[in-house]
């Protein structure tokens, strides 16, 4: 039955890894500006398409 203990500990470790990822996201400023990244993504797309069009 000790497999439950192992599973719980493993799941905790995984969860803590995600928690640390969250800390990193906060500290690196990903929550500072929640608007421009969404728009920026679309812009990059457009530029790429144009580049491809030029390459053809």
């Amino acid at each position, binding site marked *: *039955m000790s497999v439950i203990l192992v599973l719980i500990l493993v799941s905790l470790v995984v969860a803590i890894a*995600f928690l640390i990822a*969250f800390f990193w996201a906060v500290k690196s400023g990903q929550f*500072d*500006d*929640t608007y421009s990244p969404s728009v920026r993504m679309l812009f990059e797309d457009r530029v790429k398409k*144009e580049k491809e069009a*030029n390459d053809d």
Partner: protein
Amino acid sequence: MNFVSTIVKNETHCYHCGEDCLEGKLTFEEHSFCCNGCKTVYEILSSNDLCDYYSMENTPGFTVRDKAEHSLFDFLDNESIKREVLDFEGEGFQRVTLHIPNVHCSSCIWLLENLDRLKPAVLDSVINFSSKKLTVNYKSDEMSLRQLAEMLDSIGYGPQINLKDSDESKKPQKTFDKQLLIKIGIAGFCFGNVMLLSFPDYLGIAGVEEEYRSFFRYLSLALSLPVVFYAGGEYFTSALKSAKQKFANIDVPIAIGLLALFVRSSYEVIADVGPGYFDSLVGLVFFLLIGKWFQGKTYESLSFDRDYQSYFPLAVQKRINDAFEPVPVKELKKGDEVLLRNGEVLPADAILIDDYASIDYSFVTGESVPVTRKKGDYVYAGGRQVGKQVRFVIQKEVSQSYLTQLWNNDAFGEKEVHTKLIDKVSRYFTVLVLLVAVSSAIFWQITDPSQTWLVFTAVLIIACPCALALSTPFTMGSIMRVFGRNHFYLKNADVIEKINATNTIVFDKTGTITETQGEALKFCGSELSEAEKALIHTAVASSTHPLSRWIKQFTEAKGFDYNIESFEEIEGKGFVVIVSGLTIKVGAAKFLGVEKNQENNATQVHVSIGDDYKGYFSFEATYRKGLNALLDALKSKFKFQVLSGDNDKEAERLKSMFPVGSTLRFNQSPEDKLKAIKEIQANDNAVIMLGDGLNDAGALQQSKVGIAITEDVSLFSPASDAILKASNLMDLDKFIKLAHAGRKVVVASFILSLLYNCVGISLAVAGELTPLVAAILMPLSSISVVVFTTTSINLISKKIKLK
């Protein structure tokens, strides 16, 4: 006969970003644009069929905005200023973060992040949309900071540079936000895990699995440690602080509850007598932190603490030997000769030594028609020179000037502390809970001493005013969001409670209850034919005077094609234009040799075509539409006062608009306005002050609630508790109504949460509070309070027709 008509504003949508095109819309290839950025982007993209992205370097963007004769950024060449503005300086490379107030739509982001295509010297540029800050890395040997600022300005995104911004008063706020997010993360993480680990206990562990029980319990204990001591730590420190001041704020009962929960649960686990209440404990902290985050919504790009320093320039052109060089304004002394160019602000009181200057005081008084000053006139600081460059001799140091000495007043010290409703309630609440806990402990001590300590802690646990503590943040947070959608931005949620405590509204006149943009313009004299209109339209087109712009708009006529043959502007008087052989004179009455109409107090611009005197354009301040309705809606609850810096020529008109009993004061200096507010407050009145200019700064500061009115919220506004977009001024009664309703919602949710507490406490007193009951009851009460407050605020705001 008088011919009167008004300008009709056409509201259209920007072709590129879809925003409303307000004043000053731009047209290109039959499309309207809301801003230069959009227009530039459109121009570039359309001329290239959206394909040839690389011809961006042809940069039509550079020609979009009429280049001012002189750049206003040459002070950035001054080494000491440059060093303060720059973030980082490496070899051949510099990084700077600039505040760009104009950023407002997606194409702004696009353009600003593609700066390297305009200027290869830019390595990269990243914009933070919510704080409107642009960070640029660039090669400093190919481009100077000044050139960067000029380039941004030329594409319509002039940076706002002042030292206040560069020493970054906002940074501590940011780390606070991040810390709160991290705390929420930890609390949420632990909450989820502890809840899972508690299930076996709630569901009842049978037989073999019993050996894992203490493992689950100790794990819960371990997971609750960071939550109690890190995430919830501030409740303990805040409770201690207020206990020292012998004042029980809401954090005191929370801290007591958390402590009781933690001690009781740890005891149960260590003594192996029960599962403890760890999931309730951790969930409680999690909900409380969420509440804090919800209420803490801030408007990052708005600044509520600006003083004159952030409006005044960093540097001004001072005469050193025979040349003018930029020097920091702090170093200006009496007797210095300074040069102001078009658009520059006079930083200190001075005497004009050139013949004429046209000074725009709109930021100071709200009056948008520039005033003319003659040689030898004493000119107050804060005015913006319009037109050609002029020289002044400084009379006072910057901080001692007429306007700026206002900031030496002690009203600019600490503001009075407002006791929040929740803290008033919590004082009684704490006492009551302690009473119930102690008396039930005494009761059990007599009947069954083994239960005493259990019941005592159970009462403290269940009485923990989580729901009570959540009702205010969620109500206020919802109200702030509704206000924000209606362009009414609060400095923080406390302002809502302060609004509820007021009973007097004080208005500034110019710019607050009168329109600042495009004042009503009418033509008095013989009726103008379409052809004459077109002639005047052509004539004024080459003048840079702001009044000309309005006349130009007014005289819009189609189907005529006139050419300007000569144009001569006589500074401070008017101009003579020869259009298709006709001499047209536009300007002051004296300049045309006619009598000024004395009955009309408004600014007058007279016109003659050929030898015929046609009449004059009259610029009148108009009161904002809907003002009467607003005053009507508010008059039952508020007294009104008007503080005007102008003379009393409008007194009769104002008297007829304001209800009887309102006080009108005229000729108020900035100091007078501050004193007037103090006087009103001395009679036990709490004041909402509405003002728009720097001259209202003192009054705004002194009032309980100072609301700055501004046409464009991204532009400068004086320090205040709230910023209201001028177009939404007429919703003020609704805002106040919602704030009042908010108070009722808070009280109702207090009752709701107290009901839960009553049920919980009676269970606890009876000794029936099992961890399972606590685990259901406590989150249930929190969630129902959250749902109740947010939905009722949204329903009420819909009912009073706020967006």
